[in-house]
C-alpha cells in the first residue's frame, strides 16, 4: 500500500514530561484518518512533528516519502495545514489574505473565488478579517488550507467554532477534496464528525495510541450484543441478542408494550471511555 504518512516509534519529551511514547501508525494515500484524544493527550504535538515544526525525541516520521523534519519549500507546497496556531492578516480583507496565499502556493487563477464559494464567504470577501466572527475566521483558514488542493491536509479541530449548518458544508468540502485524492489527517473532539468522515481513527491517551481501526469495526468490536427496550409504562429493559432475548422480545411485542427499540452499538465516545477510562473533553 502507498502511504502518505508513516510514523514509527515516535516519542517526544519536553523536559520531564513524556508527551508521546512510541506512537506508530500509517496513513494510506487518499485516506481520512482521525486522531482522537482529550486535551493534553499529544495530538497537537504529533501534528507539529508531522509538519516539521517540531523535532521528535526518537522515532521516524515520513510524509509523502520524505523525512518530516527535512521538508523543503516544494514539499511544503504539497501539504495544507489548519491548526490552532494558524493566523490571518487582520487588517487585510478575506480576499487579499487568500490572494496572497494563492500566490505563495502558486494556486491556479480563479481558485480564490472557488474556495470563497465553497466556504460560503463570497459575499463577505471585501471585509477586513478583524471584523469577522470566530466561525468566519475559521472558514477563511480552512479555505486557505485547501487553496492549493494539497496532497496531505492536516486539520486540528477544524469545525470547533462552526455552527451545525457550516459544519455540514465543511464536511462536504472535505469529502470532495478527499475524492480528488487529498489525504486528510484530522484531530477532533467531535465523535460524530470522526464517525462520519474518517476511514480510520486512532485513540490517543497520555501520549500513547490505545486503539486504532475503522469506526464501524470498532463499534462492532465493542458492541455488548444486547438490545434496549423502552416500554409504554416508562420502564426500560435490556435483553440479550440471542434466542432467549428473541423470546422475551416476542412477548413484549405481543403484549404491545414496546415504545422504542435501541440497538447497543456504542458511539466512538463510549468506546473511548471504555478503552482509556476517561471522556474526550
Amino acid at each position, binding site marked *: 500500500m502507498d502511504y502518505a504518512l508513516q510514523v514509527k516509534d515516535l516519542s517526544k519529551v519536553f523536559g520531564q514530561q513524556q508527551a508521546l511514547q512510541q506512537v506508530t501508525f500509517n496513513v494510506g494515500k487518499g485516506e481520512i484518518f482521525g486522531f482522537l484524544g482529550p486535551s493534553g493527550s499529544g495530538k497537537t504535538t504529533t501534528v*507539529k512533528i508531522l509538519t516539521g*515544526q517540531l523535532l521528535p525525541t526518537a522515532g521516524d516520521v515520513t510524509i509523502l516519502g520524505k523525512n518530516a523534519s527535512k521538508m523543503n519549500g516544494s514539499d511544503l507546497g504539497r501539504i495544507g495545514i489548519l491548526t490552532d496556531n494558524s*493566523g490571518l492578516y487582520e487588517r*487585510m480583507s478575506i480576499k487579499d489574505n487568500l490572494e*496572497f*496565499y494563492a500566490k505563495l502556493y502558486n494556486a491556479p487563477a480563479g481558485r480564490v473565488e472557488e474556495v470563497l464559494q465553497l466556504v460560503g464567504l463570497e459575499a463577505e470577501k471585501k471585509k*477586513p478579517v478583524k471584523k469577522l466572527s470566530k466561525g468566519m475566521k475559521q472558514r477563511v483558514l480552512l479555505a486557505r488550507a485547501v487553496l492549493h488542493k494539497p496532497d496531505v491536509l492536516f486539520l486540528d479541530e477544524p469545525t470547533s467554532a462552526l455552527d451545525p449548518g457550516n459544519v455540514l458544508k465543511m464536511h462536504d468540502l472535505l469529502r470532495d477534496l478527499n475524492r480528488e485524492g487529498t489525504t486528510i489527517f484530522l484531530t477532533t473532539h467531535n465523535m460524530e464528525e470522526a464517525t462520519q468522515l474518517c476511514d480510520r481513527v486512532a485513540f490517543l491517551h497520555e501520549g500513547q495510541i490505545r486503539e486504532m481501526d475503522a469506526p464501524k469495526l470498532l463499534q462492532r468490536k465493542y458492541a455488548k450484543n444486547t438490545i434496549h427496550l423502552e416500554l409504554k409504562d416508562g420502564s426500560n429493559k435490556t435483553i440479550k441478542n440471542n434466542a432467549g432475548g428473541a423470546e422475551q422480545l416476542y412477548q413484549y411485542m405481543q403484549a404491545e408494550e414496546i415504545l422504542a427499540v435501541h440497538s447497543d452499538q456504542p458511539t466512538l465516545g463510549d468506546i473511548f471511555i471504555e478503552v482509556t477510562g476517561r471522556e474526550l473533553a
Partner: protein
Amino acid sequence: MNAARLSAIIVKEYHDLKANVQVLMMVILPAFMAVLYSRMSSGDEKLFSFVFVSLFSLVFVTMYVQSMLISEEKEKNTLQSLLMSPANTTEILIGKSVITTVITIVSLFISWLIMDIRISNIGILLIVLILSTVLFLCIGTVVGLVSKNLIQTGVYIVPFMFLFGFAPMIQMYFEDGIVGDIISYSPSVYMMDTAVSALEGQDFSSYQTDLLWLTGWTIVGVLAAYVLLKKKNLSN
C-alpha cells in the same frame, strides 16, 4: 529565490502597512528631528547633525518598525503560516524588509531635504547607509523574533534604541574611560564616524577600519536574523 513569491510578500506587506497608522506615524519623527537640528546647528556642525538625524531614522524607524512588524506577525501566528508555506527564509526576510527599507529611504530623503546638506563622497555615504539599514533591519528582526508579543517587543527594543541611538553621544562624554572604550565598538559609532568623515571629505584610509567594523557588524546581524528565522517552530 522565487520572484513571484517575493513580490507576493512585498505586496502583502504594502496592503497590511497602509492600514497600520501606528507604524506610519513613526516616519514623521525623523523629519521633526531634522527641523529641530537644522535650526540648532550651522556650518560643519550641520554635517554631524545630519548624520545624527540619519542614525535616529535608522534606530527609530528601521529598527523599531521592523521589530514591530515581525513581532505582530509572530503574535498573530501569521509568521508561522508563512514559514510553513513554500516561501523560504531568504524570501521571507527580504520580503519583510523591503517596505521598512522604503520607509527608511523616504525618511532619510525628507531629513536631507529639510537640513539642506551638500553631500560630498556620496558613494561612501550610500555604502554606510545601506550597511546600517541592513544591520538595523536585522536587529529589529531579531528583537521581534525573540519577543513573545508586541508588548514585550516594546520593552526589549528600548535598550537597543538607547544603546544604538545615543552611543556616539555617550562615547563623546566618556571618551577616556572604560565606558567609552566599550561603546566605541557600537555599530552606530562606526556608522557616525565613517559617515561624518566621508561627508567632511577626509581620505578613505582615515575611515576604512570603521567601515570594515560596520561591515562585520552587518554580517553578524544578517546571520543572526537568518538563523533565528530558520528555526521553524516559533511557538515554543
